[in-house]
Every structure is written in C-alpha cells, then in structure tokens.
C-alpha cells in the first residue's frame, strides 16, 4: 500500500476530489495547511504598514491506495491540481506498512 500526499491550491480541491472519485477512490482526508515553496508569500497592507505573509494557505490531501494504482493516481492528482501558475504545489507517494479499518478491525489492502 502507498500513501499519496498532495499539497495544492485551495481552489483546486474540488477538481482533485472529482478526479479521484472518477478514478474510483473511495475515501480521502483533507487538511487545511499553510506553507510556501519557491513562490514565497505575498504582501498585505494595514494602515500603510506592509507585511510579507510567508505562509500561504494550502490544502493537504491524503489518499491510501494499493501499490499498482499509485503511479496512475499520482498523474490524476497532478493533472487535476495544475493551473500552470506558480504555487501549484507538490504531490508525492510514500510506502505504508499497515492499515487497519477502525470499525471492523480489517487489516491490509482490505482496509483501504
């Protein structure tokens, strides 16, 4: 099993969610996150005082998938999240040792 983690622009969440659903993904977890990459932050002005806001709002999506789907799903997420502008985010996968479904106690791929 693998975990796909995507950090994306907040307004692309619906597209990514729909694309994952169309692929057949059953569930996912979404977290509001903040951070920056090479684009850094933006400037805000309050009564003439300018503040550089380094950490910009992002959405973090986590999806558990079976090994054979991982590569293809990575592409699905990237395609749905892309705007082509700076700050589109990152997607990565990582190996997962164990998964347990809390309600039933199922373990392994059954629980995904």
């Amino acid at each position, binding site marked *: 099993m693998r975990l796909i983690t995507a950090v994306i622009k907040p307004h692309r969440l619906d597209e990514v969610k729909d694309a994952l659903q169309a692929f057949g993904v059953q569930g996912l977890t979404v977290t509001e996150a903040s951070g920056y990459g090479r684009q850094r932050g933006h400037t805000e002005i309050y009564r*003439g005082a300018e503040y550089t806001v380094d950490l910009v709002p992002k959405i973090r999506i986590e999806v558990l998938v079976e090994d054979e789907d991982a590569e293809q799903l990575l592409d699905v997420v990237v395609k749905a999240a892309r705007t082509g502008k700076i700050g589109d985010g990152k997607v990565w996968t990582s190996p997962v040792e164990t998964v347990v479904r809390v309600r039933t106690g199922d373990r392994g791929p059954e629980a995904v």
Partner: protein
Amino acid sequence: MNGADTAFVLISAALVMLMTPGLAFFYGGMVRVKSALNMLMMSFIALGISSVLYVLYGYSLAFSGDNAGLIGNLDLVGLKGIGAETLTGDDGIPVFAFVLFQMLFAVITPALISGALADRVKFSAWAVFVALWISLVYFPVAHWVWAEGGWLYELEVIDFAGGTAVHINAGVAALAAVLVVGKRIGFKKDPMRPHNLPLVVLGAALLWFGWFGFNAGSALAADGTAANMALNTQVGTAAAVLGWLVYERIRHGAFTTLGAASGAIAGLVAITPSGAHINALGAIVIGLVSGLVCSWAVSLKFKLGYDDSLDVVGVHLVGGLIGTLLVGFLATEGAGLTQFGKQALGAGSVMAFTFVTTWLLAKLIDLTMGFRAAEDDELAGVDQAYHAETAYDYSQAGRSSGGQHTEAATTGEQKKVDA
C-alpha cells in the same frame, strides 16, 4: 419642560452608549487573536467605571458651579437635590437627561485611549487608570470647554461635541500613556495583522451610527442646529472615507477595508467640534482633509518609534486638531484669525495639561501596581492571563472536552457542559 428636546436627548444618549461597544469591536478586530477579548474589555469596563463615578462626583465636578474657570464644585455630589422635575431651564430638558448624555461621553473618552495600549497592559491597572484619568483629566477639561464659567467656554472656543474635550484629550493621553508603558514586544519586527477586519467594519458602522447622537444630540435640542450637525456628520465622514482611500491607493496601491473604516472614524472625529458651525461644503473640506492627513499621520509612529498600537494619536489627536483648527476659518459666523487663535489656544492648553497629567498618572500606576503585563503573559496573550477565556473556539481539537467542570462538580446539579 420641552418634550421634543427631552425625547431627542434621551434617544441621543442611547445612541452614544452604543458607540463604546462599537469602539470595542473596532479596536477588537484590529488586534491579534490572542488579545481580542482584552481589547473588548478595555472599552467595556469604561461603561462600568465611568457611569458610576459620573453620578457620584463627575457631573458635579464638570457642571456644578465654577472655581477659577478650572473645575466645578462638589455641590451636586451624588446628584444631590436633583429630581425628575428639575430642568436645565424654563423650556429646558430634565437635568437627568443631560446627566445621562454627558455621562456617556465620560464613558467613551477613556475607552478611546485603550487602542494605544493594546495587547500589553494589566487589566487591573487599566481599570485604575480609567477611574483616575477621568477624575483628574476628563472632568476638569469637560468643565473648561462646556460648563458656564469654564475658561475655554468663556473664551468662546468652538467645541460643539467634543473635538477638544474628547478627541484631542484622548489622543494626547494615549501618547503620554504609550511613552510610559512602552512598545509591544516585537513592535516593527513581528507582523501584527488585524485578526478580524469584518469586526472592525462592524465597529466603525456602529460608531458612525451612534455618532449622530453624539454630534447632533450635543445641540441638546431637536432643532436646526441639530439637523445641520447631523447632515454634516454624514457628509464630513463620507468625504473622509474618500480622502483616506485616495491617499492609500496612490501611496500603497490598494483600497483597503481597514482604510475605509479608519477614514470614517477620522472624519467623524474632525466633524465633532466643527459640524454645527459650518455648512455642508465646509464639512466636505474638513472631511477630505482629515481623511488625507490622518492616513498619512498613522505612519508617524513607525518613523518616530512610539507604539500607538491602533493609531489613537494618528486618528483622534490629528483628526481632532484638524476639525478644531479648521473651524476657525470655515465657521459660517465669526471665522478668521481671531477665532483660529482661540481654537489653537484651546487645543494647545488641553494638550499641555493632559499630556503632563496623564504621563504622571501613568508613571504613578507603573511605579506602584505596575502598568505593564508580565512578558510571558503578553507573549501568550493577555486574554488567558486576565480573562481566563478564548475569543474563538472553532477547532474540534482545541475543545476542552477533557477539562474539569469545577462548578458543576461541586453543585452536582448542572449537566455535563461541553465547554
């Protein structure tokens, strides 16, 4: 008794009351989330303290008799001898209505100062400061400006609704207090963004609404003076919003929400002393000038290095001065250098007296009970330290479901509270 005037003043008093909670929101939205409740409370406590002290001796010191033009006497302590039928004059209003109206000015004036001291003072010290400041500064200055016998009143300085007694007074006091208390930790270094701008706009809207009572109500009569003042309150404020936004767009490249709200307050402040003595065109001039100049003046604190956190000096002192001085030239009757000189003398003497007295008072509080919050409390947020509360509880994870409900446990009656 004049029923129409009485009704108008009573309604105006209620409008002025609403300004202090409005100010609390205006200021409260501008601070960081960790001290939002404290900012609200610094205004709200003035409703408690000033109202009580005003009845006990404030009204008497401000409006009963006169001693050398400087202060009233103690004949009306506890409103002694005043009854429901006691009137201000033959065709006047009940004295009680006048007392209530004036009391609410004594509420909002010290509350205005609190914005300069955001995030960093002990709440108990602030409460003591409010009580002593209105006693030693506000009541005398109100006497100077508005009471028969008061030296600025007799000099015919124009201060219709309190540009000098309220706004210049509070603005200078804020500067003096800030110089004693010092800067917030991280001033000019850490970002101190407003945590809730919609709350700021709500506060500005409530202030604008209540200000009709503050300004027009100061006519103490339902007449043409009140109508002129109400109209100019709207027009001057509108022009100040435009002035502030134009300056910001040119200087900083954006029309900010905070700028629009701040411009409204600057205009309201500047029209306060002047609005009854000018026409609508004069109100546009005073409004525009106050919006433009105050939007520049709020940057002075960074250049000069004093942490007037929410710009009480830049908005109330500067705006108050603009209205107080310009009316010398723009007044529809008696305008000219003579009147301007009187206006400058009135503003200057209040600034000198208030600065010195407030500085000494703040220093006294700092040396005895300590004015400044402990460093740890300031860093963690004074809401927790002084009020044992959190402004917003949006997070499921942050809910204190594992906490102990001491009250419920001891009485054994209350159901389990999901706090």
